[in-house]
């Protein structure tokens, strides 16, 4: 009797496992495209199997690093495109963290297993072009019939390299000064008046710092968010055209000395904090002032922080902010047919409806005339503050083949040393300047 029971239990167990395997297989089938195209990761054209469709189904694979809340909006837009494009194009999107993305993409391109198209920062164009890894997209405007002059020229220029387009526009941004209005009020400052000069920012930061509450006046990062400080005081990082360093200048040394005093001696910024740490502090209402891109807007709104957003402060000489942006790029292995399909999506992206949605939901400034003049955009609180700032945009490391290397290998370590108080700015600037020249020299 017991043996019989045991046998029955085994049979039931095996049946359950089998049915689970079968159903999971079935699901994959239902999800559409066969697993073959997933494995190879290269978009492929399927034969004319669908009923009614005049041409076959085109599957595009698409990688990007939008892991934040903006990724949700992007997914939503891609899904809508898949449903409504009318040309039987299906985009299979794969979102992964940027660092994973940049590890996977180069070898994928080299081994011909890259996705049909990708999203990437415009600063990567020269590097990928010099390695023959992305295609020129000069025929984008003529193929899609879109009017080039309908978009802000400054923004479009970002996607060009050596006179050719290598990306189609997706979003652009400057760096902005965020300030926490509640913390300003508590410190006895006018919550509607952010600092206008760096000098003022320094004074405010000291007032806004309260160690007992783990509250900091200003978040100093090692990324390009502090470029406005250097530029503002009349300094420069490098001369990209002549490939030489301009870092070792008296005004830069003075600027970095001022910054070091503010961070190390006056302790207005948490020691050794990374960008992610500062983002968290800002979102938890413990950071009074911070320079960052529009991607903070969504998170701050969700956390209910009472914040304002404006231009980075003026320096003693001028006011400027680094411009950056993402675009759609097509790896070299993508066929012409798939490229045309990618153009369809890029065109869809540039429609007023989608650009407006992206601007409203994520806070990125608009760059098409129609969206800029849209009444909803004109009345949006965030856009009212940042839309007029477009003229402040200045390139930090765009259009330089070794741009990301200069930033990662020289500027970041130098900023780290200065902000940790582990080196004298004059010394560090000199060392960094020599390294910049060396990197330019090697790239020739």
């Amino acid at each position, binding site marked *: 009797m017991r043996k019989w029971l045991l046998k029955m239990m085994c049979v039931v167990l095996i049946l359950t496992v089998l049915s689970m395997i079968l159903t999971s297989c079935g699901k994959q089938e239902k999800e559409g495209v066969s697993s073959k195209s997933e494995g190879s990761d290269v978009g492929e054209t399927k034969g004319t199997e669908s009923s009614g469709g005049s041409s076959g189904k085109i599957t595009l694979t698409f990688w990007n690093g939008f892991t934040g809340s903006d990724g949700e909006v992007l997914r939503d837009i891609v899904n809508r495109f898949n449903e409504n494009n009318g040309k039987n194009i299906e985009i299979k999107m794969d979102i992964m963290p940027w660092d994973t993305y940049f*590890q996977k993409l180069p070898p994928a*391109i080299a081994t011909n297993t890259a996705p049909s198209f990708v999203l990437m920062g415009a600063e990567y164009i020269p590097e990928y072009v010099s*390695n023959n890894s992305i295609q020129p997209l000069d025929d984008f405007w003529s193929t899609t019939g879109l009017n080039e002059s309908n978009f802000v020229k400054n923004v479009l220029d970002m996607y060009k390299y050596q006179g050719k387009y290598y990306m189609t526009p997706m979003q652009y941004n400057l760096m902005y000064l965020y300030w926490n209005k509640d913390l300003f009020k508590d410190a006895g400052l006018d919550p509607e008046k952010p600092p206008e000069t760096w000098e003022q920012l320094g004074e405010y930061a000291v007032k806004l710092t309260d160690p007992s509450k783990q509250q900091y006046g200003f978040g100093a990062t090692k990324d390009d968010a502090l470029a406005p400080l250097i530029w503002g005081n009349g300094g420069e990082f490098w001369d990209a055209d002549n490939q030489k360093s301009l870092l070792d200048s008296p005004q830069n040394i003075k600027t970095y000395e001022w910054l070091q005093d503010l961070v190390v001696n006056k302790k207005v910024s948490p*020691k*050794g904090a990374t960008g992610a740490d500062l983002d968290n502090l800002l979102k938890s209402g413990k950071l009074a002032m911070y320079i960052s891109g529009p991607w903070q807007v969504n998170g701050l709104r969700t956390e209910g922080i009472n914040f304002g957003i404006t231009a980075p402060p003026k320096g003693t000489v001028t006011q400027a902010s680094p411009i950056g942006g993402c675009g759609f790029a097509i790896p070299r292995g993508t066929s012409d047919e798939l490229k045309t399909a990618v153009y369809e999506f890029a065109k869809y992206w540039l429609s007023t409806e989608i650009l407006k949605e992206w601007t409203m939901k994520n806070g990125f400034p608009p760059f098409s005339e129609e969206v800029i003049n849209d009444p909803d955009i004109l009345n949006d609180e965030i856009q009212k503050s940042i839309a007029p700032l477009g003229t402040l945009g200045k390139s930090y490391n765009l259009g330089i083949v070794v741009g990301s290397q200069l930033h*990662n290998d020289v500027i970041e370590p130098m900023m780290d*040393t200065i902000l*940790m108080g*582990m080196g004298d700015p004059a010394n560090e600037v000199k060392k960094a300047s020599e390294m910049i020249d060396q990197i330019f020299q090697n790239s020739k």
Partner: protein
Amino acid sequence: MEREERNMKSKIKLFTYFNKPDKAAYIFLLPSFLTFTVFIFMPLLASLLISMFDINIFLENISFSGLENFKRLIFDQRFWNAFKNTLYFTALEVPIQIIFSLLLAAYVQKNTVFRRFLRSCFFIPVVCSMTAVGIVWSILMDPTLGTVPYMLRFLGLSDIGFLKDPLLAMPTVVLITVWKNFGLTMIILVAGIQSIPDTYYEAAEIDGSNKWNQFINITIPLIIPTLSFCTITNIINSLQVFDQTYVMTKGGPVFKTETLVQYIYTRGFAVAPYDLGYASAVAEVLFLMIAVIVVLIYQFFVRKETVDV
């Protein structure tokens, strides 16, 4: 017909050949030999080759550069910094882990219920993934959000940066690594200690020797082979340290925790110009360094064993 017969004969010959125990061993070795060749030996050779090329991850513009990558290495400050950090990590991690595990092993080796329970508890971190452990500890140690600095503030110790502090970052990483790995070393040592016959201890007790003397004069000399195994594997693991620094510090602050493997990763895979050739050159140096250190340590233990016997 004749052909079939010949086929049969050669088959039988093959069977009888491999049926001898010393020949059959090759068949049993084959799977691991194959995996070893494909995943260890060939990559080793490949990286040696790659280190002599100017090659990036896009596999474009490849050119032979001879020993250029190795020459560049000599003048690369960041390489020497990583070299120093790796040695510092090893010099701190290995002794702490071995001594700590040895003392605990001596305590938990008795098979009582409580001590067996302790053994299981100490083993838990070994089972966890280093990534998960790293993330949890970096949150716990975070100067602004973490529990540990918060508790320390009650003791009047404020402003301890742990992983954010240039001086404390490496020792913190070492302590977390020890916490994660001591369980395994301890279990191996417990097995070593338990294999020592009780008679030695009984004899020592009759002679009036106390626990400490027994530990120094009986336990340690008799587990030298186990100790040498633990030390050598620990040294190899320490020289290849990567996961913990990658997850917790990314080599910072100011490169204070950048180790050789982290540097190889950064140069080859993380930042432009994705210099695979140079990264491979660093990997070759690391390989040589591990080989030399391990041979030296191994000989030290072999001499120790023979002297003791």
